[in-house]
């Protein structure tokens, strides 16, 4: 076994979802040689490489592709890079987190390598036997990969949770090697151009990794009312999520959507306010450890998955919660 992990980094350190990809890679089997591929340029790449090299004992090698081409993580150069690295390394597996990054890049790279990727893996039984949800998580499918190498996967971070990975074991840092890009060429690269990134600047934790998620639905009625959800989230040190209805209505941006086609989360505590519980939404949060639902409608399907339900008006309940909840530690 030898596995290549495609890693994301930001501001000089690996993103949390990439730790989940490492965890998944290390559960593929014994004697797995795990290499990690990082791309980008400049000092933040170097810092991320140092971070990657010492973040997990199972990492045997860090590969660096240092070029301006990779700064914005566009799929075209990245897929080509994966193809190039695979030609040389002949890995048995290639793994990425099923983030926008992984979902954008890995299938394209798989097509270049003429293999079928397996997306959104939630369980690894053997090195070629995987569990993945289908039909919005209403069925679980076990698939065996029967194709040629490499076997390519994206894994759900929520299913491979990582407690903490600090870069403290400096003593056994993995070697860092630069990828030879001399044969990279220019063909097919540069037809997509990065224009700009607009993102929510927030003090709150990232939705995908938060310990607590507070979600609002259509019942919030407007963007102004949605601030109630944000206030509660701040109190609990939680991330904010939203249903498709709330996003469609413009209360909050696209990237806060939890559900089949949005973010998949599995926090310790998930609190849903004014969320009816469409199957597409449940698909994104059903693996949460404790689910709380507050809804005026006692027949709302969300109550069927909630550990604690409260039938009531969120406009009464949230202020009362704000009053009665303990201050964040």
């Amino acid at each position, binding site marked *: 076994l030898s596995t290549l992990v495609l890693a994301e980094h930001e501001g000089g350190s690996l993103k949390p979802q990439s730790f989940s990809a490492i965890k998944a890679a290390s559960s593929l089997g014994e004697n797995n040689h795990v290499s990690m591929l990082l791309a980008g340029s400049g000092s933040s790449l170097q810092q991320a490489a140092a971070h990657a090299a010492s973040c997990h004992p199972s990492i045997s090698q860090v590969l660096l592709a240092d070029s301006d081409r990779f700064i914005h993580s566009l*799929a*075209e150069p990245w897929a080509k890079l994966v193809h190039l690295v695979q030609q040389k390394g002949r890995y048995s597996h290639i793994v990425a987190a099923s983030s*926008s990054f992984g*979902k*954008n890049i890995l*299938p*394209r*790279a*798989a*097509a*270049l390598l*003429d*293999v*079928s*990727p*397996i*997306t*959104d893996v939630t369980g690894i039984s053997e090195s070629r*036997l995987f569990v993945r*949800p*289908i*039909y*919005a998580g*209403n*069925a*679980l*499918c*076990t*698939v*065996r*990969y*029967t*194709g*040629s190498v490499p076997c390519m996967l994206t894994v759900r971070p929520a299913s491979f949770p990582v407690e903490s990975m600090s870069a403290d074991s400096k003593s056994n840092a993995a070697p860092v090697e630069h990828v030879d890009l001399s044969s990279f060429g220019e*063909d097919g690269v540069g*037809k*997509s151009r990065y224009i700009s990134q607009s993102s929510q600047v927030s003090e709150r934790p990232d939705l995908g990794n938060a310990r*607590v998620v507070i979600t609002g639905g259509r019942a919030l009625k407007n963007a102004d009312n949605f601030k109630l959800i944000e206030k509660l989230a701040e109190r609990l040190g939680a991330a904010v999520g939203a249903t*498709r209805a709330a996003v*469609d209505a413009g209360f909050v941006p*696209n990237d806060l959507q939890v559900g*089949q*086609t949005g973010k998949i989360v599995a926090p310790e*505590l998930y609190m849903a306010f004014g969320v009816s519980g469409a*199957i597409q939404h449940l698909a994104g949060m059903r693996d949460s*450890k*404790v*689910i709380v639902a507050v809804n005026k409608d006692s027949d709302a399907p969300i*109550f069927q998955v*909630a*550990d*604690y*339900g*409260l*039938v009531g008006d969120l406009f009464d*309940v949230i202020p*009362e*919660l704000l009053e009665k*909840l*303990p201050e964040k530690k």
Partner: protein
Amino acid sequence: MKIMVAIKRVVDYAVKIRVKPDKTGVETTNVKMSMNPFCEIALEEALRMKEAGLASEVVAVSMGPAKCVDTLRTGLAMGADRGIHVDVPGALQPLSVAKLLKALVDSEKPGLLILGKQAIDDDCNQTGQMVAGLLSWPQGTFASKISICGLTFSAPLRSSRSTDLRLNQPRYATLPNILKAKSKVIKKCTPEELNVPIKSDLETVQVIEPPKRKAGVILSSVDELVDKLKNEARVI
């Protein structure tokens, strides 16, 4: 410019699916089938581009068993100009679909290929990225807004897009358009004719229902909720 849109026939999004007792898959006989919602959004976007004068023709394509023609007919009723059905009786994985699409793009030469970002049955989210890779075209995945500016339009910008929810609200097919769609052409072809061997890299071992969550309790007050979260669940 010609726009090609790939559409997939799936179990209708409102159907509560049932896992077959023998664990071989999900029941699809006697179940309402519809166009995959993301494919609808992709087709809607193509039609709007045509209405805005940015495209001359919209071609809807679908791969799979004979019934896919019904879904293509829906696409034609929405406003697509013609359809192509690649007749494949068995299961198709995204890599094969991507290869078939590439073959169709090579013969039809569209300037833009639009796909839904994922099908709501297998939730794979792969085909758009794969076909773009095979074609060496640029890709824009999970598009929630597409704008084409006049300058890059005439440039060699041929690309593949996959669409997300917010892109648009798909139209309903009106009765006159449904009738009109009956006379539109759906060309049928086979993977052999397109020179694409269909291979499978994946074997479905079993399909089961996910574990059910235990039924919870309905509380009567905020005080009780705070108490439960603090002392029973110990999450705050």
